[in-house]
């Protein structure tokens, strides 16, 4: 996406199952976007393929979930874990969304990653990043 990028080996994560829709892509570099809560997930094999990730807690402080035992085992998670959401940038910036239903979970020690699905969590694949402000603007806060 931005020409040649040098990537350290420690930034490369294996995604043994790929990502839904990109099942063949099993190796990605995690490239932090400095001074922002964003990172790029860049396919190692396909240089034209990258995703923008964000720490979901930056925009949805109440976001929480329990990682299933199966996912923990698959990711060989012992202590360290990192969580990101895939960002879908809309041509109208304020309609941009993040995927809270299927976060990208990383094990930084083993450099393993998986997009896990939070079954029956009530979270959405297209959560408005600026949802709260939209609500403020329409003053529909309160209620349920």
């Amino acid at each position, binding site marked *: *996406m931005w020409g040649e990028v040098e990537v350290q080996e420690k930034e490369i994560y294996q995604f043994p*199952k790929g*990502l*839904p*829709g*990109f099942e063949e892509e099993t190796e990605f570099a995690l490239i932090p976007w400095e001074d*922002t*809560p964003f990172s790029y997930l860049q396919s190692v094999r396909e240089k*034209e*393929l*990258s*995703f*923008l990730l964000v*720490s979901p*807690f*930056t*925009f949805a402080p109440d976001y929480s979930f329990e990682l299933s035992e*199966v996912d923990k*085992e*698959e990711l060989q998670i012992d202590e360290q874990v990192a969580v990101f959401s*895939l*960002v*879908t*940038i*809309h*041509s109208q*910036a*304020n309609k*941009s*969304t993040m*995927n809270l*239903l*299927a976060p990208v979970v990383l094990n930084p020690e083993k450099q393993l990653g998986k*997009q896990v*699905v939070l*079954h029956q969590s009530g979270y959405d*694949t*297209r959560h408005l990043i*600026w949802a709260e*402000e939209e609500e403020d603007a329409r003053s529909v806060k309160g209620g349920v």
Partner: protein
Amino acid sequence: MLVLSRKKGESIVIQDQIEVTVLAVEGDTVRIGISAPKHIDIFRQEIYAAIQDANRESATPLAADVEAFMERLRNNGLKKD
């Protein structure tokens, strides 16, 4: 597509590791039980499709859109932990 008729309580076996059982039929709702090795991910089709769609839409955002997005973010004051 292979089509099989099964009654409540009956199963089908896929390879030798996955077993799908019809647990109950109520009107047009069928309850299905699935036994599979734990490394096999199981999804409701529409949920998997929604995630695939969202991922495809997220892939390789246009530089101009990213720029507009970051501009919106800056106008807002970048929230950081």
